[in-house]
């Protein structure tokens, strides 16, 4: 087991269950994540990946189960709690307020304020220029609402928000779904870079090639249950597709 030498996992979600109106969206699922690792969460639409991950990001609360960060049990009751644990999330919908500009979105809920408690717009814009200059040098539209930005630019803002606040645990829900090839490449490079910095990343992804390229391990879900977790370099893409479609664990699973 490759993981045995890594020590305490960064995140452990143990035996998580959550149901909506009698339907078990997530059914006793256990996943974990180590520093410097990318774990792919795979499965069909409605398999429960996003729901599971929203328990970690604070958007939902699990009915049962336990979340451990660095081996310690934590309570995550809302997005604020998650942020306090250095968990940052890039949602599939990006979760941007379209009527606000990039800086306002980046600092939403964590605004920089002056000594008198008023918003420090200039400081926030300056910081936004810095981080976006690094992530996407072509980004120039700082003073317009994000509704006026292209899909890739909006994605940059959402990513900048997650990266800026020194995340240790990053959740990315289909970060490349709406992007062109060039921008997808940029996101891939960013994931590699963040991984090298020791972040743990949960990556919800549909594209099997991206999974094979970016992920170290993959946890596959089907109908709310965990099919299994495999080391990506020990299986083929057919094995993983079999898990997703048939819910069948490959013989040589990790």
């Amino acid at each position, binding site marked *: 087991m490759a993981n045995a030498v890594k020590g305490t996992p960064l995140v452990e979600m143990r035996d998580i269950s959550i149901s909506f109106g009698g339907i078990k969206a997530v059914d006793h699922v256990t996943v974990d994540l180590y520093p410097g690792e990318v774990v792919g969460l795979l499965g069909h639409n409605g398999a429960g990946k996003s729901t599971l991950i929203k328990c970690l*990001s*604070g*958007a939902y609360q699990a009915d049962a189960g336990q979340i451990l960060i660095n081996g310690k049990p934590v309570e995550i009751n*809302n*997005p*604020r709690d998650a*942020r306090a644990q250095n968990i940052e*999330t890039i*949602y599939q*919908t*990006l*979760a*941007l*307020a*379209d*009527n*606000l500009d990039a800086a*306002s979105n980046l600092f*939403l*809920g*964590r*605004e920089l*304020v002056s000594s008198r*408690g*008023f*918003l420090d*717009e*200039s*400081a926030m*814009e*300056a910081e936004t220029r810095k981080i976006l200059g690094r992530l996407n040098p072509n980004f120039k539209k700082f003073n317009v609402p994000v509704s*006026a930005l292209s899909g890739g630019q909006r994605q940059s803002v959402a990513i900048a928000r997650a990266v800026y606040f020194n995340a240790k645990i990053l959740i990315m829900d289909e970060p490349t779904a709406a992007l062109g090839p060039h921008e997808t490449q940029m996101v891939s490079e960013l994931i590699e870079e963040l991984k090298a910095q020791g972040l743990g990343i949960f990556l919800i992804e549909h594209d099997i090639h991206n999974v094979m390229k970016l992920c170290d391990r993959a946890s596959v879900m089907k109908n709310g249950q965990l099919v299994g977790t495999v080391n990506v370099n020990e299986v083929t893409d057919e094995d993983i597709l079999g898990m997703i479609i048939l819910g069948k664990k490959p013989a040589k699973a990790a």
Partner: protein
Amino acid sequence: MSDQTRPTAPQGLPADAAASALQRFLKATEIDTRLLGMAGALLAIWLGFHLYGAIFRDGGAFLTPRNLWNLSVQTSSVGIMATGMVLIIVTRNIDLSVGSVLGFVAMIMGVLQVNILPQYLGLGSPLIWVVTVIVGMALGALVGAFNGWMIAYRGIPSFIVTLGGLMFFRGAAFLVANGKTISPVDADFALLGGGPYGAIGFWGSWIVGLLGCAGVLLMLRSSRANRQKHDFALRPIWAEAFMAALGCGLILGATLLVNAYPWPVGIVKNYAAAHNITVPPEGLFISHGYAIPVLILAFVGIVMTFLMTRTRFGRYVFAVGGNPEAAALAGINTKRLLVQIFALMGMLAGLSAVVSSARLNSATNALGQFDELYVIAAAVIGGTSLAGGIGTIYGAILGALVMESLRTGMVLIGFDTSIQSMVVGAVLVLAVYVDNIYRSKTK
């Protein structure tokens, strides 16, 4: 720009050059073009009514110090509430109860200051108006908070909650004194509604005007310093100078105007008799100066603008309006925020109740009837989008001024009330239509 100018059409060139000069000017000064449009519409309304009066009646009566002063006072009550309605509409809600809450609070304040407080504080005590205003605003805030709680925590749509409030509080206003009108109100309290004594006079107005100018200059300077600190693009100096001249010019112009409106002869006579002044044969010219309710509106406008643009609270209001889900995911307590917004709206309705009942010098249970419609219309004419996420405080105040200008203008030229409401209704729809076109063009 020059690429688009075809050499075969030389007459198009100067027009293009002029357009680009205007664009450059707007870009450099960073003037909101929507604001410009509204100011233009307001000016057109004012000039239109004045010219109509000058041509078809016995002289233009609109652009006189007297009319404009009265206009400013009449705008105050709706203007104060419109600033709060911006927040409500920005978060995709509506408050139909403000007019009734105004009536209810006014009645409670009337009973309080006339029947109750004199027993404890003594008749004519200077504390009466203070206690009354505090109780009125607190009561308004409480009612608003309760509305907000039902909307945010009990999931009842704001339209329903406040429609219920519209009926409930109109009835409650009647019950407070069994339909009796309470009049006159406390003498100090009445000053808050304007009138010759409820204005700050010649020197007071100049002091306010100069302080306003100093404020404009200070703001421009601090904004420039802030941009310098972060190496952002600065406005050209000429643009800064233009903005300073424009801001100060408007304030000083308004000061000259309110000081040009003298007290009526009868009031001067009473005042002279009370203060042992002999009135010279040509009469005494005593300026009104800024009316107190107008200063209250200005103060509310500044505070609310600050709240909306410089504080976390305001940022969250816009965020919730733009994308409620994203706001919640960013850790914003959207339910508590909604309660705060409705409480603020209620408090402002309480303040408007102060201004309205003081101006009338009496509290009646019909006070504020249909105000909710004017308040909503003012906010919407002022560019607040019912789809949420967009709106400005100054826009709402300008919207209130536009509507009040239409009403007074039509009264002056002798249109009856049925025509008045037809025109105001048509203008509301037209304003939103024009705004839609503008937005789709600039996007």
